[in-house]
């Protein structure tokens, strides 16, 4: 029985972890392209979830239409953030851009509370709230569906990044902006595209999580969970981000299991990933901002 419970926590951890990985990937995408640490990542999720919820509940659109509308909205929003807010800062110190993303996070939190209120809301049931029997474990259908959506998004992203011309241009820009530009790659376009894709995939994740857990400001906490995930996986590595996300998801659930069964401290799961983060940063203190940039004249 205990072992069953442990297995259930591990499976839950894997499912949540894939979603963390997806969000972490969005974060790494922006970091890789432009070296900007995006503190507003969680708000991109929250925005997607609220817009979709608003379109379904307040406007009355069918779910699929609201979903597509939200994705389109997110792409436009991502490009707008890059072009209107960040592009004028090109040439300014990187820390200015990073602080602006902190500002964006506060701004979006506030404006979403203003528009949609502070009370958590839930989507009308889109998927059966039933549970399926997965190798002897009871798992919610909605969880599995969200995991499937996340996996499809990850696969699509991997294909885009590795096989498409724009993906190639993005990889080139991530490696060296000057060289990419000398080959005709528009670095500005690549930055805008990085934000667009990041916002799009984040909104998908936000909607999926919103379907399962309901929509509330707490969703943005996913943006914070991303930090242990990407630092575990290495800030520059997309695969690393996904693996890091899964590890954080499992770690969290294991912490909850240990807490619930033995320690009874309460809420250990929220902080466990950060203990790991602190431990890693003690070993690799230059992890986060330690980029070196040497330029020859």
């Amino acid at each position, binding site marked *: 029985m205990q072992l069953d419970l442990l297995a259930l926590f591990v499976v839950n951890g894997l499912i949540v972890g894939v979603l963390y990985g997806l969000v972490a990937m969005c974060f790494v995408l922006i970091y890789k392209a432009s070296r900007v640490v995006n503190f507003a990542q969680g708000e991109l999720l929250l925005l997607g979830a609220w817009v979709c919820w608003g379109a379904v509940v307040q406007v009355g659109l069918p779910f699929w239409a609201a979903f597509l509308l939200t994705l389109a909205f997110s792409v436009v929003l991502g490009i707008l953030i890059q072009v209107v807010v960040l592009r004028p800062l090109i040439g300014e110190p990187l820390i200015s851009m990073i602080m602006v993303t902190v500002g964006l996070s506060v701004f979006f939190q506030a404006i979403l509370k203003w528009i949609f209120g502070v009370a958590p809301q839930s989507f009308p049931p889109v998927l059966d709230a039933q549970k399926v029997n997965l190798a002897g474990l009871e798992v919610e259908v909605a969880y599995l569906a969200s995991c499937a959506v996340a996996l499809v998004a990850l696969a699509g992203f991997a*294909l885009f990044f590795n096989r*498409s011309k*724009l993906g190639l241009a993005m990889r080139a820009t991530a490696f060296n902006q000057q060289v990419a*530009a*000398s080959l005709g790659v*528009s670095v500005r376009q690549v930055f805008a595209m990085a934000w667009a894709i990041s916002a799009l995939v984040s909104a998908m994740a936000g909607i999926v999580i919103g379907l399962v857990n309901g929509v509330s400001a707490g969703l943005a906490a996913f943006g914070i969970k991303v930090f242990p995930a990407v630092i575990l996986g290495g800030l520059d590595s997309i695969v690393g981000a996904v693996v890091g996300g899964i590890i954080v998801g499992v770690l969290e659930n294991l912490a909850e299991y240990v807490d619930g069964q033995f320690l009874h401290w309460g809420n250990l799961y929220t902080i466990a990933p950060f203990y790991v983060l602190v431990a890693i940063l003690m070993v690799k203190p230059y992890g986060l901002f330690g980029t070196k940039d040497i330029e020859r*004249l």
Partner: protein
Amino acid sequence: MSAKVLLEGRDISLGFRGVKALRHVSFEVREGELLSIIGPNGAGKTSLLNCISGRYRPSEGELFFDSRPIGSLPTAARARLGIARTFQNLALFAHMTVLDNIMVGRHHLLKTGFLRGGLYWLGGAQREEIEHRRRVEEIIDLLEIEHIRHAVAGTLSYGLRKRVELARALAIEPRLLLLDEPMAGMNLEEKEDIARYIMEVNDEWGVTVVMIEHDMGVVMDLSDRVIVLNYGEKIADGTPQEIAESAEVRAAYLGSADAAA
């Protein structure tokens, strides 16, 4: 050679916080020509190349490419006009294969847009890619890098990486190719290879070449014309013969030959 002027720099000056890297440099590059820029270390050769490629904005002066002002265009736009370059320090995308490195150079020539590029295997992207591969194969043939096309660039030897960088610059189908010390750090055999490739690109493909090079033997053999910079000023401009005989060049350049070697 009375071909038309492909690139013209008028009165180019460039300063870094009071340090003048270039002072009122004017020059012309004619279509089909192989022009070398020489001068002691710190003379402003790479700075001039960077002004042409768009990495630096001159503080004074204007640049014309094909009679059109390009001073305000960003690097990528100049590349799309046909100005390619290689870098003094190797600048390959180290984690990509040789083929992917070269394909980045094809990026701006691909018509397939974002969506169809994303849905690579559905639209015309694959057909388009086959066409581009054919052109890429020509470049690979010329530079004799068939055997390493699927190798990861970062794992290659120095000489091979220099060749791949040249291939990548050629992939954008340049009209003007800027080479920053293409032969630095090479042995005699490797230098002869690179010299042959550069001549072929220049003669057979008709690509105009502007090259910074320290090896005087190479410069005198390959160049149609030579420009000499010293302390950011142009002190001579002429055929290799004229440059070799110029007293001013000897004083400025050969006088500090130890530094230049």
